[in-house]
Structures are given as C-alpha cells and as structure tokens.
C-alpha cells in the first residue's frame, strides 16, 4: 500500500525465486494480523522464556493466540511465511537468534542464497536496485 514495491511479489521469472515480497510494509493492519507471532517472539526478551520454548516448542506456541498457519510457520522456521502472515522482522529475528541464526542467514533465505553467498554479496557491496 505505502510503497509501490510493497504490493509487488518477488521475482517471478524463476521457480527458484524466493516467495518473499520485495518490501514488507509493517503497517497497522499487518501488525494486527501478525500480533500473535510478534508477541511470541517478543517474549524471548526473557531468558526463561527462551529456555521454555526450546524445551517444548509446541507447548510454548500454545501460550499464544496463533492461527494454525502461524504456528506451522514458527515450528517449521518458515521465515518468509511468518512475514507473509503479518510478522515483523524485528520480532522474528529474535526467534532466529534463539536458533543462533544470523541476519545473513535470513538474508539468504529471503533471496534464495546460502548464508555464505549472501554474506559475500554484502562484503562485495551489497545488492543494488533501481
């Protein structure tokens, strides 16, 4: 809605192209849609919650008002799916950290690369658009 890019799907010419939208606009409606995922991820600010989650992920998910799709996306670590279901990267990154995954790993997921490929691309100056 806000940016022209927001509504456009990601590259579509290849079967391997990531499903991620070009740019996510985290607006109020998205925030409402993704609130349960974000709330779950926000809870990882407490060490105690991180341990609870790791010891029984399914049970931990039960504490939050997740849709089945959202629960699935969390348990499967479907990073694109979580964003498509309204989550914000600032929250889902906390889940990635629980998994000891880096932002380069996530960047790779969003763009169909390995963590190493994505990291090298950043070192070589990042990705240019427009």
């Amino acid at each position: 809605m806000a940016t022209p890019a927001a509504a456009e799907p990601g590259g579509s010419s290849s079967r391997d192209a990531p499903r991620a939208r070009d740019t996510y606009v985290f607006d109020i409606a998205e925030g409402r849609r993704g609130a349960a995922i974000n709330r779950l991820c926000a809870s990882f600010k407490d060490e105690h919650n991180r341990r609870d989650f790791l010891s029984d992920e399914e049970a931990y998910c039960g504490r939050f008002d997740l849709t089945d799709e959202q629960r699935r996306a969390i348990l499967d670590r479907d990073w694109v799916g979580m964003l498509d279901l309204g989550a914000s990267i600032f929250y889902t990154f906390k889940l990635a950290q629980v998994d000891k995954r880096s932002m380069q790993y996530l960047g790779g997921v969003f763009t169909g690369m390995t963590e190493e490929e994505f990291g090298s691309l950043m070192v070589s100056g990042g990705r240019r658009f427009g």
Partner: protein
Amino acid sequence: MAEIIWGLATSHVPSIGAAMDYGKTEDAYWKPLFEGYAPAREWMAEHRPDVAVIIYNDHANAIDLDVVPTFAIGTGERFEVADEGWGRRQVPPVIGHPPLSEHLITRLVDDEFDITMLHDLDVDHGLTVPLSVYCPQPGASWPCRVVPLLVNVIQYPQPTAARCLKLGEALGRAIRSFPRDIKVAVFGTGGMSHQLAGARAGLINTRFDRMFLEKIETDPTSLAALSREQYVDQAGSEGIELIMWLVMRGALGDGLTRIHDTYHVPASNTAAALALFAVTDSGTPSAPMRSTLRR
C-alpha cells in the same frame, strides 16, 4: 544556559556493538569501519559533553508492541540495558538527566510536539551502540548522562522527514533554553541504506547514502522533502531510520562544521556511516580534520 557542542550521526547496527564487545575490531571485516571512526573518536574525546541527547528507535525490545509512540522521551534517572533476546550487552547502565528530560518535554509540548513520556525504559542497541561508537572503553560508567528521544521508524506511518527536521529545530531551542551551564551533544542514529527482509534484502544504495551524507550538512531541507515512501524505496525498509539524523541536524542549527565522516559497507547487512559536526555559532569554531566522504 545549556550549549550544544556537537552532533554525531551514526549507524547503530547491533553487530558493531558486538564487534567491540567481543574484541573483533581488528578483524579484516571490521577494521575499515573502526579505522574510519578513529579521528572522530579522538576529537570527541577532547570535547566531552555533560549530556548526550540520543535520538534512536527501540527495536521491539523495551516498548510493548501494542504501544507505538511517534516521538517519546525517557524521563528516568537510569536506563537499564535491554535483553534483546540474546542476553544483555555487557556495558554500563545509562544514567539519565531527569531535569533536562522534563525541561525538553515541557518545551516541546508547549511548542506543539506531541511527545510521549516514558517513565521506565530499557535501552537497546539503538542507543547503546552509538554510545560505544562515541566511547569504546567506558569502564564502569559512560562519560556522560543521556536523554533518550525515541522515534517510530518501524511501523507505518512513521513521522515524515519534514516533521523530524522541525522536531530537531524545536529540540535545539529547548536544549539551549535549559537554565544550567552544561554542554550537550546530540546523536542522530540509524541508517544508512539497508533492508533486512523481503526479496530486496541486502539492499545497499551507495549513491543515495553519499548524497544523504553530503546534504545532511549542506541542505537538510531537501532531505526533509523526501516522503517516507521515497526513503523506503531508495534506502530500504530499514533505511528510513535516516529520518532520525534530521532530528539531530535540526537541533544543531546553521553554524556547523563537519569534523569528520566515514562510510563503509557492510556492517552486517547495513551500510554504516558516521558524520561528526561541531557547532560553531555558540563556541569556538573547530577546523575540520579530514573527510573520507569525497575521497
């Protein structure tokens, strides 16, 4: 009366803090960035403020996700370092300046800025990394008090760039009317171009960043004229953080000199920069040292 002595624009990427916390600043990956910081750090070490007003954003840490203030100011005597999901940074707690916070809030509200007061606030990397950029070895305590000023850059609708520049101008007036003889530095944090999620993840726009680094000094009004959509489009969905530099810039006023700047890609997934400006109209003018910007 209080005096604004300098303004620092700096990225606040968590991994910049981690590089310092875990002694990696000499690694090949990080060395260029920290070498770029060095001249600014030397100059700042010789020009110590009593208080830093740090304009930053919380990243889903201290502020409940159901409450999104456009602009907020922390009023506390002390701000604990937030656990962002991977343990707290081992840096000193941040000490506030309640009388200055209260003065700024009152002046800004009277000046028709609709500030949210935050009476209990933990501070995340958005604030502590810039403090580390300023002062890499704080020891047991940071060398200055801090007033945190938070901007919503995460959830649409973010404040316009124009509003941020106006807030900065009002902030400058408010600081200068504080009736104590203290020296104040103003930090504008975040940026430069970066996008963490989506098919455009990894976006870096060096042309835009260089333009911004130049005009933040010479023509902030042109930066204030860009829409939030233009920021997101050009600098990435997280690059819109750059609007926080405009708050700092507005506070400095027109008599300023660029002391130093540096630009480096990447810090994690971000184009990282620093730009340091001395305020020259209310103190002795400081000669610029060197600029890596237009090398």
